[in-house]
């Protein structure tokens, strides 16, 4: 039974990825097809997306960063020496800034923005607004997908950098203040983790997460056809798909970069 299901699952997975890739191609190629048409509107939508996704999520992100950072530093300073590890700050830095920061930010963005994008586009479908855009000759990929794509990628990058900064400073001082941070943990050694390799890794993950989250959300929004009851169904599917793909990307990038 598993043998029969696997090819079907693989087929649907490949088709799904193909649909996302097609949406990415159409969005980016709309820059060529449409040139400057509607650029003021698209830029305004993009800035709105950055405001909703990054600026409004900043307090939550900083809070999570400080608590995560403090927790990881405390646990690393206490546990790692027991196993004979001396490079406590280096391991902490790699785990916190390379692995956790972009992934936690992606989870926050999926929970807040991916859901909202699916609902917004889904409601536009049900209300006939998407049809109106088509009738008015407005390119859907340029007007709806592209500003969200650029906005979400920019937001994930900004939030990840903020997360790293907050975890570095806030996490350290929270851990220090709690009294649980061992004296062997030196902030200066943690600073040494920040090198070109780390930034490159961070940027690759942020771009990948941002592109996947925005495309998945837009794709599921467009899948809503006529009924309002489809909107929460597609929102749930969109969130699950975005989460799954984010974990897969994280794994792949960790192995490859």
């Amino acid at each position, binding site marked *: 039974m598993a043998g029969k299901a696997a090819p079907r699952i693989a087929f649907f997975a490949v088709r799904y990825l193909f649909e996302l890739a097609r949406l990415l191609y159409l969005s980016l190629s709309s820059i060529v*097809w449409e040139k400057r048409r509607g650029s003021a509107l698209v830029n305004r939508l993009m800035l709105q997306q950055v405001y909703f996704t990054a600026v409004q999520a900043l307090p939550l992100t900083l809070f999570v960063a400080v608590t995560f950072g403090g927790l990881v530093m405390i646990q690393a300073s206490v546990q790692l020496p027991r196993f004979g590890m001396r490079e406590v700050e280096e391991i902490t830095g790699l785990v916190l800034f390379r692995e956790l920061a972009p992934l936690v930010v992606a989870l926050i963005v999926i929970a807040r923005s991916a859901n909202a994008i699916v609902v917004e586009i889904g409601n*536009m479908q049900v*209300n006939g607004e998407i049809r109106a855009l*088509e009738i*008015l000759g407005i390119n859907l990929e340029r*007007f709806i997908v592209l500003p969200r794509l650029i906005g979400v990628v920019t937001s994930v990058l900004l939030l990840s950098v903020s997360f790293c900064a907050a975890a570095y400073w806030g996490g350290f001082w929270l851990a220090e203040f709690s009294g649980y941070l061992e004296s062997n943990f030196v902030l200066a050694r943690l600073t040494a983790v920040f090198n070109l390799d780390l930034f490159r890794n961070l940027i690759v993950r942020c771009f990948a997460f941002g592109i996947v989250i925005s495309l998945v959300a837009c794709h599921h929004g467009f899948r809503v056809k006529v009924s309002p009851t489809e909107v929460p169904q597609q929102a749930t599917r969109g969130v699950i798909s975005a989460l799954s793909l984010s974990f897969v990307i994280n794994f792949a990038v960790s192995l490859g970069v």
Partner: protein
Amino acid sequence: MAGEPLVRDASFDIGRGEAVALVPFIHEDPSPLLDVLAGLFSPESGEISWNGISSRDIEQSSPGARYRLEREVRLEVGYVTPAASLFHNQTLFDNIALPLRYHLDLDEDEVCSRVEDAIRGLRLEGQALRRPSEVPRSIRRRAELARALVLDPALLVVDSPYLDGDRTAAQALGSYLEERLGSGGLALVAVVEDPARIRGLFTRALLVDGGELKECRGAAGCSLSEAVERRMQRGTENDNAKENT
């Protein structure tokens, strides 16, 4: 599209300044025909042209040329249908201004001037800064018409609820359209279930009946009133046939 063809072997021209009423008989839904006239779908056979842009040329063009031609058609044809609504998170003013801001590189003063002309023409003063959910349906319909007309299309295609609405809306729309038709810049095709509502506006009527499109011109002896009478008579015949079965 699946099912019986809505119209077969139809051939007609619509010139600038003409207003054509599509009068459907009872149980006929001419919306798919409007979609074809508006350039959203190609006819199953034959050809349709809008200001020299032919559907056949579009189909046979390269992807880039097809994209440009389809967009030109979208700019030449204004289409108003209940399936395409206003944007609920924007004011009526921003809704009407959207096609101008997207397609034309105008400064905001010029955009405001054109939108205000449309607002005055369709008697939407005082409503422009409201959102669609805050105004009655008749106001929303006039705003949709304004949005379709703001780019000065060559052809306006209108579905029935917009012209069969309340008397104030019909009068406002009728006088505005007369002005645009009179200047020779616009052609109008509208589904009208009761052409008497906009008496004087339409120059021709096309009856949609059982897959045929029958032309009625005032001079050829089939007036709009006769079109309405035939429609009502046919409706009565259909109802009697159902009772007898």
